[in-house]
Structure formats: C-alpha cells, structure tokens
C-alpha cells in the first residue's frame, strides 16, 4: 500500500515538477524526497529506501546518502541526479535494527551540503503475509468443511458421485490387455513427489495394480523420479499382496527408466515399441513429453487412459488418447475408485467450496457493475 501511495506521490511530484519547469519557478535548492520504511512481508532483516531527487541536475548533479544501522555508519550510496526514482534495500542482518539515512547534496562545485533530509526506520519481522491471509482463511474454511463432512460420511450418510467415463474404462482396459496377453503400462507422470498431481496419480496406481494382479496381466511402471520410485514400489507390492497374488509380484515391475525429461520419454518410447503394451495409463503431471508417449502408445495399438492437471498438455491428451481425465477429475479419482467414505466426504467438501467460490465471484461481479470493489477485495484479496 505504502509503495502505491509513494508511486502516486512520485507521479504527482513529477507532474507538479513538470509544471514548475514550464513556469520557470524557483525549485527547492537541494530538494529531494526520501522515504525509508520497513520491508513488508519479511523476517525483519532489511528496510526499503526510496529516493527521488528534486533539484535540477545543473545545481545538484549528485546526492550522497549515508546509512547508519543502530548508529553505526555502514556506507554511502551515491545517487546521480537523473531525476528518476532510486530504490535500494538496506540489509540490517538482524531484527529490530534502527536504520538512519542522511541525504547530502553535492553542488556543481562538488561541495557536500547538508544533511538535507534525515529519515529513520526500524526493521521488524511480520507475523503474516498480508497478501496471503485471504487464502489462509479460505483454506481453514475448507479444512473445517472437510472435517464436518467426513463426520457425516462416517455416520453412514450416502454421498452421490457422478460417473467419470475415464475411470469406468479402467476395468475394461485392463481386461483387454489380459485377453490380448500383452502388458499394462502405468506412467505416474514425469514430475517429482512435491507435485500433488503425482500423489493423485499414485492414489490411482493402487486400485489399478490390484486389478492387474487379479487378472494376472504383466505390469510395468517406468518412473522418472527416485522418490516417486520408492513410493510406487511400496504401493504396487501392497496391491499385489492385497489381491492375494504376492507370488506374481516382481521387484523389477516398478523401475527407474531415466531421470530427465526427454531421456525418460526416449526410454519409455523404446520400451513401448518393444513390449507392445495393450493398455497405457498416463496419469499425473506431464510436460511436452505427453504427446510423445501418447502417440507412441497409439502406434503400438494400445488403449490410452490419460489424465493430467497440466492445462497446456490437456489438448494433446484429448486429441491423442482414448480416455482423458480432465484436470480435477484426476484428483477425484481416488475417492471415486475406492468409494471410501472419508475420501467421498472430502470430494463433497470440495464441491461445496467451489460453490462458495462461484457465489463470491458472482457477488463481486455484481458489485463491480456499480464500481464497488470492496466485495471483491474482501473475498479475493
């Protein structure tokens, strides 16, 4: 806020300044505008300095700003008078330090005049990001809703979930591979574990692996990231055990194909043309390699079930794959497939929050029609 005000001030000052030039009125000798304030949203180890020279460059070609932290001289900033805003972050390296800035002007002969202005500020740490507090409140609301609905679901209240075509197809797709006697490939995206899409995909891996185990179909899970590898190994192993086919499980099913984007694509493409899978799952986060994998799968005659939250890759999956989970359907999948009440409760909560977001958006839109932006700022800060 302060920054915006200051910018507005600068604009005003420069406007009046322009007027002053026209009128050839006297300018303040050694005039300047110094603003020193605590850096917003930090942990208190710096303050911000903004400086606008106002004298004409002929009279004052240069300014010097002496900086003191807790009374100890730090250094001098030299500012050439370009009549432009000068900004600088003063590091204090500790919280609660008092920064003092003294502006000196150098006249045409180079004589140091002043101090013409002195400002002080104390570096402090903030306890919350002023621009994230809205998101935080929304999130807390979401968590609360989830808690409530989970409670309801636990009590046995039925929660309706509509059909998701891509997920219905999983059973048939695995069955098809069994009939053809060809393997199933599962690619849990090419991102790392930090990516929530990867986690969503790993949640689907379990039921798929269980089905594959029941049908006794060969299974292959090529992976790009080592941490994802460890997680996927556990999931597949437990899924085989749950299906009662621990004897079919082989440690080599889940393997690291490679570690980079395109070398991974090269390796998986190679594996696909050699092993000729009948079904390929492409679920998770993808980048440009999405289309390479999808097209190669098509070339070897596999059914592809794809799903991603990468909006830039969705068009390719839509075009090249037989079934596509679009965006949030990927996240809904684990609840949909497991039918576990806890997960279904979360899905319901998600819909309710979405309803609230739409409502708040409509409200903001209506108020904006009349030029009132406070509603929008309240909801979507």
């Amino acid at each position, binding site marked *: 806020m302060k920054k915006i005000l200051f910018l507005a001030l600068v604009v005003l000052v420069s406007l009046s300044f322009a007027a002053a030039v026209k009128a050839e009125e006297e300018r303040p000798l050694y005039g300047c505008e110094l603003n020193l304030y605590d850096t917003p949203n930090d942990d208190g180890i710096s303050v911000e300095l903004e400086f606008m020279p106002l004298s004409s460059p002929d009279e004052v070609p240069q300014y010097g700003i002496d900086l003191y932290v807790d009374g100890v001289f730090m250094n001098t900033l030299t500012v050439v008078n370009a009549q432009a805003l000068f900004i600088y972050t003063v590091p204090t390296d500790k919280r609660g330090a008092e920064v003092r800035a003294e502006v000196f002007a150098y006249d045409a002969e180079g004589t140091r005049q002043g101090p013409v202005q002195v400002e002080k500020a104390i570096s402090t740490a903030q306890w919350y990001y002023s621009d994230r507090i809205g998101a935080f409140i929304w999130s807390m609301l979401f968590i609360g809703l989830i808690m409530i609905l989970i409670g309801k679901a636990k009590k046995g209240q039925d929660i*309706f979930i509509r059909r998701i075509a891509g997920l219905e197809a999983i059973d048939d797709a695995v069955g098809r591979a069994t009939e053809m006697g060809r393997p199933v490939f599962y690619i849990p995206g090419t991102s790392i*574990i930090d990516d929530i899409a990867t986690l969503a995909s790993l949640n689907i891996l379990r039921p798929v692996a269980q089905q594959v185990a029941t049908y006794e179909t060969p299974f292959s899970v090529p992976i790009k990231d080592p*941490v994802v590898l460890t997680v996927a190994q556990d999931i597949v192993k437990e899924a085989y055990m749950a299906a009662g086919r621990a004897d079919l499980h082989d440690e080599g099913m889940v393997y690291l194909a490679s570690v980079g984007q395109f070398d991974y694509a090269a390796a998986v493409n*190679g594996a696909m043309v050699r092993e000729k899978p009948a079904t390929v799952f492409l679920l998770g986060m993808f980048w440009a390699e999405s289309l390479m994998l999808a097209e190669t799968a098509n070339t070897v005659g596999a059914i592809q079930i794809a799903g991603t939250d990468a909006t830039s890759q969705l068009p390719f999956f839509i075009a090249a794959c037989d079934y596509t989970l679009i965006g949030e359907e990927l996240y809904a999948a684990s609840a949909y497939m497991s039918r576990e009440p806890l997960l279904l409760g979360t899905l319901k909560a998600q819909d309710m929050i979405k309803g609230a977001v739409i409502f708040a*958006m409509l409200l903001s839109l209506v108020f*904006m*029609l009349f030029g009132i932006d406070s509603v929008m700022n309240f909801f*979507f800060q």
Partner: protein
Amino acid sequence: MLFWYTVAVLLSLAIFSFLWKDNPLYKFAEHLFVGTMVGYTIVMVFSQIIMRKIVDPITLAVHNHQYLNLISLIIATLIGLLYLSRFSQKAQWVSRYPISITVGFWSGYAIVTSFKTNILTQVRGTVVDDMGAPLLNGELLGDFIKSPSWSSLDLAVSGPLLVFGVIVVLIYFFFSIKNENPMVRFANKPALLYLMLGFGASFGYTFMGRISLFIGRMNFIFNEWWPLLKQTIGG
C-alpha cells in the same frame, strides 16, 4: 570441433530414425541418452547437494562453532540416509519416514500457495482485468449500442463471454450433483463448447512452436554442421 558437431548430428539422426521404426541406431542413442543423463545427474547431485548443501555447510558450521546449524544439517542427512534402509529387506519400512516427511511438507506447502495462485488470483482475474476495469462493464455495452462496429462489439461482449465460460466450466466439473440437476444440465453443453474451443485452439497454437523446433534442428544440421564439414574438408 568438427568431431563433436558430427557426433551431435549423428545422434540427432539416430533419434529421428525412431519415426520409421525401432532400430539398433535408436536403441543405441536411447541407451546412451539414459546413461549420459543418469551420470550427469549423479555428478550434479554430488556437486550441488552433497558438496554444497551438506559437506561445505558442515565444515563451515564446525569452523564457526554454529552448533545449531550443524545439528540441523546432521539430522537432515540422517533422515536422508534412512532411504538406504530399502537395501535391506527387514528394515525397509524405515524408508517411510523420509517419504512421509517429504510428502507432508510439500502438501502443507501447497495448500495456501495453490489457493492463492490457482484460485483467488484466477477468480480475481475473472472479475476485473489486469488494469482493474470490471469485466462485466455496462459502459462498453453502451458504447457498442451508440456506435456499433466489430471492435466495439468485441470490447462489449468479450468480458461477459469470458465470465460465462469460466462459470459453466466450473459447474461442469461438479462431482456430487446429479446430471439431472437443471443447473448442471444447462451448463453441460456450453461448458463442453468452451472446453473444445479452448483445446482445439491451444492445439493449433502450439503446432507452430513444435514445427519450429524441428526447423531449428534442421538448421543446425544444414546451416552449421554442413558448412563446417565443407570448410574442414576443403582446407
């Protein structure tokens, strides 16, 4: 120089040969690629993480007697080492600790961030544009009625169409509402229309960039490597 350029060209051609069919040349390039990248990654993890984030800071901490720092680094290293428990059959489950720490931290980290960037910022962008002007704007509609033209029509309807599209797409993805619900039924067709227009347009839009990549590759072969080859052979 020519040697390395030639290597680069031959490898490129080996990759392109995959389009025809899988063949030993492609297999060679593929396996070479994997080996190179894994080796490269090992070196990077060693130099950028093992050395820069573990060894150097620990040495520094010992040197400067920053024991708090030292303890933090050692704990992190020990947690990381738990991964290696997977090499033993019996203690394998210990590797769940680093996994749950990683997954837990990033999940928590994602909550507020994605609410902010994926939801609030996007919704805000649907209420007002980058300059702070409302997307539903009666004045622009008035301008159009006063002086009808293509550009004033575009200005007047673009905002409302955008808002409408966002809302129907959001409604389309409600999971817990039955398809017979009138709101969902109403939103269904327009939402699909928006989605398909968007996907089609994005597909066509990206097409250009993908062709450019291939042209860039061919430029390398014919405008960089070929002249260099001729120059070297010709003297």
